[in-house]
């Protein structure tokens, strides 16, 4: 080539990005999901079709880092307590799945003319599923928090951990002796090193990273914070690689450690775009890696192997799910989602090849089969949506083939509630108690079947989807309650609702003050901060416990509430005009708090003390503290 190296690199980058930009929107529009879009794009630009990209193997290794970032983000969502709750699915479901799948594949392969070592190695390699494909697909469907989603995640986590022992077993399975080299190097030393690195991540995360992030956030320069976030992830990955552990596991751990820090959201929003981009590139390179030549050469064998792999994995997963009592319809989703081979298969295959565990022909066949099984996952999930869900009791109501009794009734409810978690439940139960006809939109199918038993009108689905809103009767409803947990989702639903159903009065749940202001600016008619009322109630009880009269304390709470709401509405109108907007959301919060604290001192105590004063003693207890002390005394003497 007469062009320089830079040209080649830029050309590759351009092709990857452009392929994604063109393919993904088309795939999403036609309901295939972004993963399938990327895979198809990769296949099209790959060496067997247009041949626009070269050395996709190398690109894939770089892009695998997207998986590492994804696990960091997943970790950020999982506080340690939550992780502890998942211990049974991780060890039980995950462990059983891995052992049983490996064994089944191993036994099936023994019927071919492969050596038992090779069969076992392949069994171990394909037992692992694809974190990237599964999580991306489930997140896109907002299914991560369902029973199936949680279990799938637990299994993936176990598989990530299992890669370490598998890496040490594979060399032992080498057909020739060439493979076994350094496996004997003092295992206790490396074990010690591993423990040290993990402890380092946990302790360093707590005592080093958070203070460091605080200082960096103080510099108020966004790119430096992003650089810090990235170097954190890369650094941990490096450390893990150095001691021979899975980088994904390490960053996941770091994510969990940082899940309770105030920088959780900042880190999330900074890493997210890089993760998405890298994952996209990863999927494209998987697509580009599809060995169409081999496929055309042995179409029957390849299809049989792919079908066999998916069916075996599916069967084992379904049985495992049944043993661990995953609900039937959730189990379908669980088994479909995890039925592919994973990106670890690529790593482990090339590793095995180096250690001469099996021949190059087997390796390339294995990679092809695993890749194809990955391509089939999004398709399987689409099939699942179409055929399994409608048969389950919580089928999407808006589905055309829904049974008559599940059709959306003619008489639409005046109230629609999106999200039936902790918050929505309170609203829904209150209305239900007064027999007010409400329609509930929820995407946790466990919840739904329970609610159905109590005659709630519940529909499965994502309130962001326009067709679901139409189906739920948004056109004729009066009130729309947005009670979903995610702040960003609330905003998206609100924007949709305001755009397409302007007649609706929207009452929205806000996670905090900042969010409440954003919702007000987006046109929410009423916003309710989820912690405001309980915080005030607790404060009122505290005043009472200190001896303040109950009705005084109650009024103090009311005065506070009205004052705070007034300031909030005022700020929502003016904040973006003359207030500095910090890049760091925690700095914004601190500024708001500072302003509020200043106002507090001035406003409400006077307001309180003026009540029920008579001319004779209106100045007697201007000082709240002495008034409180007096009341306290009175109470004591009563006792």
């Amino acid at each position, binding site marked *: 080539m007469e062009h320089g190296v830079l040209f080649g690199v830029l050309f590759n980058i351009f092709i990857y990005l452009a392929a994604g930009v063109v393919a993904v929107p088309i795939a999403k529009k036609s309901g295939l999901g972004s993963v399938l879009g990327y895979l198809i794009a990769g296949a099209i630009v790959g060496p067997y079709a247009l041949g626009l990209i070269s050395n996709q193997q190398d690109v894939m290794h770089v892009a695998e880092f997207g998986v590492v970032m994804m696990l960091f983000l997943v970790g950020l969502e999982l506080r340690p307590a939550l992780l502890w709750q998942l211990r049974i699915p991780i060890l039980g479901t995950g462990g059983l799945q891995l052992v049983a799948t490996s064994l089944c594949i191993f036994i099936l392969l023994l019927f071919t003319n492969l050596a038992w070592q090779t069969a076992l190695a392949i069994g171990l390699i394909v037992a692992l599923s694809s974190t990237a494909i599964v999580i991306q697909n489930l997140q896109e469907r907002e299914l991560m928090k369902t029973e199936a989603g949680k279990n799938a995640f637990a299994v993936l986590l176990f598989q990530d951990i299992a890669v370490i022992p598998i890496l040490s077993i594979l060399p032992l399975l080498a057909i020739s002796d060439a493979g076994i080299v350094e496996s004997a190097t003092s295992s206790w030393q490396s074990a010690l090193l591993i423990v040290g690195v993990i402890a380092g991540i946990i302790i360093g995360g707590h005592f080093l990273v958070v203070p460091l992030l605080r200082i960096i956030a103080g510099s108020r320069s966004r790119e430096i914070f992003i650089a810090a976030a990235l170097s954190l992830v890369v650094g941990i990955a490096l450390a893990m690689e150095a001691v021979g552990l899975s980088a994904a596991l390490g960053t996941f751990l770091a994510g969990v450690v940082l899940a309770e820090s105030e920088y959780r959201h900042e880190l999330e929003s900074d890493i997210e775009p890089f993760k998405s981009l890298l994952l996209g590139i990863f999927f494209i390179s998987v697509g580009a890696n599809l060995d169409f030549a081999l496929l055309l050469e042995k179409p029957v064998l390849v299809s049989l192997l792919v079908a066999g792999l998916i069916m075996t994995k599916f069967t084992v997963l379904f049985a495992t799910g049944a043993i661990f009592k995953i609900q039937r319809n959730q189990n379908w989703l669980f088994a479909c989602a995890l039925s592919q081979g994973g990106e670890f298969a690529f790593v482990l295959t090339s590793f095995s090849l180096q250690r001469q565990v099996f021949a190059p022909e087997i390796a390339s066949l294995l990679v092809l089969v695993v890749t194809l099984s990955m391509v089939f996952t999004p398709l399987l999930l689409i099939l699942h949506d179409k055929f399994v869900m409608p048969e389950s009791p919580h089928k999407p109501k808006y589905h055309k083939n829904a049974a008559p009794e599940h059709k959306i009734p003619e008489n639409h409810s005046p109230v629609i509630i999106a999200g039936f978690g902790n918050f929505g439940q309170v609203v829904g139960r209150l209305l239900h108690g007064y027999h007010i006809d409400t329609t509930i939109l929820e995407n946790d199918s466990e919840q739904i079947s329970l609610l159905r038993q109590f005659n709630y009108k519940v529909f499965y689905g994502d309130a962001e989807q326009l067709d679901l809103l139409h189906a739920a009767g948004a056109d004729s409803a009066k009130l729309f309650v947005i009670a979903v947990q995610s702040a960003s989702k609330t905003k998206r639903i609100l924007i949709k609702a305001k755009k397409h159903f302007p007649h609706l009065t929207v009452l929205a749940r806000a996670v905090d003050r900042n969010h409440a202001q954003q919702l007000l600016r987006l046109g929410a008619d009423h916003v309710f901060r989820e912690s405001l009322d309980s915080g005030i109630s607790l404060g009122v009880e505290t005043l009472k416990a200190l001896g303040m*009269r*109950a*009705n*005084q*304390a*109650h*009024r103090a709470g009311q005065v506070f509430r009205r004052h705070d709401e007034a300031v909030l509405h005022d700020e929502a109108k003016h904040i973006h005009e003359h207030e500095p907007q910090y890049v760091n959301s925690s700095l914004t919060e601190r500024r708001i708090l500072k302003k509020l604290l200043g106002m507090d001192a001035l406003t409400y105590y006077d307001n309180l003390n003026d*009540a*029920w*004063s*008579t*001319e*004779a*003693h209106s100045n*007697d*207890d201007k000082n709240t503290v002495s*008034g*409180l002390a*007096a*009341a306290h005394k*009175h109470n004591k*003497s*009563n006792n």
Partner: protein
Amino acid sequence: MQKILVLFAHPALQKSLAHKTLFNAIQGLEGITCHDLYEHYPDSFINIKKEQRLLLEHDIIVFQFPLYWYSSPAILKEWQDLVLEHGFAYGEKGNKLAGKRLMLAVSTGGSENSYSKSGYNQNSLEEFLLPFSKMSYICGMSYLSPFVVHDIHKRHDSQRLLKKAQEYRVRLLTLQSNSEFDVDTKDSENSTEQTDNAEQA
């Protein structure tokens, strides 16, 4: 022994001059239930069934409150509106309170003289309290002469108030032990006031 229920309504006891002392004086007496309405219902959301049960358990009901705008503080009106239900307190079958006695224990800012035709308030206290005596009549209760502490704005020295509190306590104890007893308020009030004046002079 007659059982007494004191319904106490004071929205700002920390600013109270008289009622803190009065209310303290009747605490912990056998057969006297002190029920602090503002403390129990800070949001004025009154538990109707509980209040009716309390009424049924007692023979004498006392409303103790400072006079605000010639009437009771708001919560006591709310209490009447909600608790004295048709079919419970009045109406065809509403005879649950019949035969019980009702007494008001009231403080006023103005002097006794101000509550007269020629005084600042132009009507007698009795006239201002007419809604309470009528309520009592409709419910079939006998309306006792109110216990009144006048002139709180000007004369709230603790000695006077302690003395008044003692009188209040004695009045309740006497009512408790005598199912027929009532006092001729005018005389008693006058005599006390006179003693007070004498002491001050």
